[in-house]
């Protein structure tokens, strides 16, 4: 699986977007998730299981300084 343009080393079959969010410790209200270019609804973070050939983008919109 590709996460944000890099191979995700800790991929395990069956993990969900929610698992990834927790792994990354992101505030789910500040992220945008796309799988293979398609925007994923927040309600589906728990449902969508990720596959080995998925290209995932999780963009954290932290505004910062």
């Amino acid at each position: 699986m590709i996460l944000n343009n890099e191979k995700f080393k800790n991929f395990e079959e069956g993990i969900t977007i929610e698992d990834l969010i927790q792994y990354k410790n992101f505030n789910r209200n500040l992220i945008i998730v796309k799988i293979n270019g398609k925007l994923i609804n927040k309600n589906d973070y728990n449902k969508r299981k990720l596959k080995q050939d998925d290209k995932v983008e999780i963009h954290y919109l932290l505004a910062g300084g």
Partner: protein
Amino acid sequence: MENKEMRNKHKILMEYKYEPKSLKHGYTDKMLYVNVGDNRIEEKDIPEEVKEKFIGGKGYGMRYLWDAVNPDTKWDSEENEIVMSAGPIAGITQYPGTGKTLVCSISPMTDIPIDSNVGGYVGPYLKFSGWDGLEIQGKAKEDVIIVIDGIEGKITIETAPEESVDGHLLGEQLTEMYAKDEHEKRQISVITAGTAAEHTRMGILNFSFYDIRRKVARLKQAGRGGLGTVLRNKKVKGVVVKSKPVKGDLNNPFDQSIINKTGIKLHKEIANHDHEQNNMHKIGTAALIDTMIEFDLLPVHNFQYGTHKDAVKMGNKVFINKYLTQGMVDGCWYGCSLACAKAVDDFELKTGPYKGHKVVIDGPEYENAAGLGANCGIFNPETILELNFYCDTYGIDTISYGTSTAFAMECFERGIINKEITGGLELKFGNEEASLELIHQMSKGEGFGKVVGQGIHRMKKIFAEEHGADPDFLFDIGTEQKGLEYAEYVCKESLAQQGGFGFTNKGPQHDEAWLIVMDMVNNQIPTFEDKAEALHYYPMFRTWFGLLGLCKLPWNDIVPEGNAKTDEPAKIPEHVQNYLDLYYGITGKTITPEDMVRQSEKVYNFQRVFNIRMGKGLRANDKSPYRMMGPVTKEEYESRQERYDSQLKEKVGVDPEGKSTEEKIKILREYRYDQYEQLTDAVYKRRGWSNNGVPTKEKLQDLGMDLPEVLEVIEKHL
């Protein structure tokens, strides 16, 4: 002494009467010039060409400062000016974050132009009093104040022998002195510095706003670059601006209804989403602390590390639950529902001349907590708050103080300096008492505090020349560039942010481009070209706020609901459209997002050339100390060995196996220097600059900024 008695001791040195000109479409087209050296007060018409090219705010600041100084001008020269201007949108009350003032001067830290943005009421009140901007030039012979009374149409330069210098006292004194009653205090805004601004180079300006619920003059800071040092060098104690009462239409906008509509939209967004996004109304910019800890970005021990086991002691919840007063109206300008100007009430000071006093502390901002705290190894929130208070009232930049003290502490721990040199101060990381003593010394102009108050650039020279330190090592760990201390983010793992700091005009401040998350966390801008594009767009976009009198926070510290569905969510396109609507509402002119960038580019390139004119602004001046690029020491490398070893293997193509830490540091350093050089090439190309960082003639022509005085400067370097 009573305020009335103090005022009786004033001597009026000059009085100037005028008819305050009303605003039209956000402008009065008048600049106020005050020379405290020969007590001259004049008004200047702002030419249409200046308005068109420089817009307002920082644009006006840079234009008038350029005209006032020459290439030999130093920060303490008679002709150096403090120029301030709020910009055409500033002063509306319908949209959050619309009260900013930009202040410019030749900086005591960098010897080039500095610009610093600040909240509080001064900028809008100047506009309502008939002035798009204010220039202060010359040096008074004795302590004076400048009083701009926009109600009476009267400006005075008055001696002020008895007033306090420290910001929290002087702010109160002058507010009370020039208000007829409690109600009128809200119509007064005051500029002060502080006692340490007289003895250090990192002096700030405090801009007040009267908090009617707390009944206190709150202070916001134009913090960077030593503006307060310049003010006190001119022997100006304070500036008072008195305005007619605020109304929503004082800017006399072209189309009020579009401003109202845009404002209501954002207020709703904030009400619905701030609590689940950044929580700005509860904690302000300190909301960043926890995330910085999480991502290993919080500066610890002079930027050596990105987190610490005790960092949780200064986490977000600690400030929200224990210190910050909730439920107050904490906007630093009317109508700001983001309300991030948080405060701690009834804080009892434990040290210094105000020991035992119960005070209101404005903050802590993220930078204050990180710089005064973690970077110096201090994680006690009460010490952070006490340092925050004293920085403000003494008139010291919290960022330069934090970063400079952290540097001095590392030098102490490494034996570069010792107790003999520090005057007995055990300047180790985490020594709260030593940091507090240092700050009180700065106020009095005594001891080692006076040395640290000169900033890292000058400390490096002193430590090398007088104490035999290795200048190369000091260059590595001294986190300053162009003479200004770095703001409080560890950027070793974000090349784009290294550039975000490194290619700034004024020195490494985060207000041009904050790309750490976009780069390091999201890996959204992987190539040099991607990074260069971001390092063009974001600094230009954010410069626009400084031209118009806007705060950056309502742009991207709150995100609209449909943002994810847009093409470029990081730019918050809906909010960009809000700004275009506000610009139209005020001026009646329709512009595009590309026009915004172009407006900024004009001023940005002018400032770059201004830097060159003053002796900096070339490629050599954009280099970074290695501490901000990678691990300088064995301890740093080994603390994150797994990360660096894997980078050597995957990015550099070198097997770390069997190599000593020193060897690995050297290889990584060469790689990262090379990356930075390649990024420099890409950014200069994108910005239309030569390989030496000089805006080209073609670029300036394209922008319409091929002014004769500008071309004269660059021609020597192309």
